[in-house]
């Protein structure tokens, strides 16, 4: 047995889960899909006294259609990947989710768990930021809704209080927008060295709105607004996309680690931004 001893509870209702995190939140950990947390427990990098397992709470497993698609926090990544609603209305999520680990990981990993874990090289936080989606946090004190920039504070750290649970992720339907997710990793399924989520609202040769959110290049999903503005000003053209890529490479400040140097990450981020902009523009309709 590798993890240090802990106490375990697997509530079947959200109410019970909220009571448990209310009682044990400060000394506890919440277990969702476990694909990041269990390794941390096994390596004893995390040693919670109490583990609150949400996997028995069926009420947190849903995908509700609408102008804003509401996804229960415990919805498996694999369920989202194969959901017709996600494929049709949330093409950016559908594309990004396939970069998460491997099918065997996505069978367990959850949409809410990945966002709550806030790994700086994870895909879903960047998707949330690019789409300007929100997360719903709930505690016995009530509910609140946060945007990505207010939710992600730094590496593996969010604005969630110890007695709060992330219960729902809300993403706007964007089948009318052009989107693309691209990522470079050492192997398929590895953590991203750099990834980018792009959203373009296109009006002929013009881009009315552009959002670029990067993963793997900072403590939280990174936007480069100057590059977004360059595309809005320059319009849908290879030239403006190349310019945006140059700005991205100049502005991002990633760290070096054993997997890649900062310089390499900056370079790849610029190249990926340019490619993703081109793909997103194409998908938004018309030549690019």
């Amino acid at each position, binding site marked *: *047995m*590798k*993890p*240090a*001893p*802990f*106490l*375990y*509870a*697997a*509530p*079947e209702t959200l*109410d*019970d889960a909220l*009571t*448990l995190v209310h009682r*044990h939140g400060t000394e506890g950990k919440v277990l969702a899909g*476990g*694909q990041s947390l*269990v*390794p941390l*427990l*096994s*390596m004893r990098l995390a040693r919670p006294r*109490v*583990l*609150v*397992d949400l*996997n028995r709470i069926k009420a947190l497993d849903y995908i509700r259609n609408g102008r804003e698609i509401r996804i229960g926090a415990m919805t498996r990544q*694999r369920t989202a990947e194969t959901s017709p609603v996600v494929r049709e209305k949330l093409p950016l999520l559908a594309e990004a989710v396939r970069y998460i*680990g*491997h*099918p*065997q*990981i996505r*069978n*367990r990993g959850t949409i809410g768990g990945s966002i709550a874990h806030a790994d700086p090289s994870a895909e879903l936080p960047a998707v949330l930021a690019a789409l300007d989606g929100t997360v719903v946090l709930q505690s016995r004190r009530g509910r609140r809704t946060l945007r990505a920039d207010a939710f992600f504070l730094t590496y593996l750290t969010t604005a969630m209080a110890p007695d709060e649970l992330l219960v729902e992720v809300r993403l706007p339907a964007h089948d009318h927008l052009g989107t693309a997710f691209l990522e470079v990793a050492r*192997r*398929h*399924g590895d953590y991203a060295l750099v990834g980018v989520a792009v959203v373009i609202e296109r009006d002929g040769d013009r881009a009315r709105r552009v959002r670029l959110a990067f993963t793997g290049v900072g403590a939280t999903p990174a936007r480069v607004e100057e590059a977004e503005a360059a595309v809005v000003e320059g319009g849908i053209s290879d030239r403006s996309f190349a310019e945006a890529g140059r700005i991205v490479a100049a502005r991002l400040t990633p760290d070096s680690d054993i997997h890649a140097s900062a310089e390499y990450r900056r370079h790849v981020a610029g190249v990926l931004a340019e490619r993703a902009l081109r793909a997103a523009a194409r998908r938004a309709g018309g030549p690019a």
Partner: protein
Amino acid sequence: MKKLTAAGARLRRGRTVRAGTPRRDAKPPRRTARPVERRTITVTVNGTAYARAVEVRKTLADFIREDIGLTGTHLGCEHGVCGACTILLNGQAVRSCLLFAAQADGAEITTVEGLGTPEHLHPLQEAFRDHHGLQCGFCTPGILMSTVAFLRETPAPTDEQIREVLSGNLCRCTGYQGIVDAVRDAARRLRGRA
């Protein structure tokens, strides 16, 4: 089965204390279960039901090997990277080192021992033998369990799809080409059988 256990645990914990003070007008008693260090779980492994008391920090992989005695499920990295411990949990391929046994309470599990026997190999196992899909065999149980679930969902896979699903399993002997060939051929054999 799981529901019975949960209800029983609640009875033992709560009711006896409150039995002497029935207050019908009061709120129903809080039943939020107290976190525990050990649990009795019931799981069905390869068709056989087992009830065992386990420490809650024991992974499902260790439980299968040590408590059930099925050592075909191998442990490589023990943190979700290598895929050697892949099993089927309610029909889905998952890493058994990234689950606690307590989480599998009530679940149906299939391990490599449930695929075929030495006398009657599963078509997937035959294909691995025929295509040099293994050398030392350490990673093979996990690869078989990953691909058996995959071929059920994707009976006619492309090579790209085969490679994608195999990306979740590390093999240090074969160079993977034999494995890809085996999975491709197994898909053909299984289609012929269906």
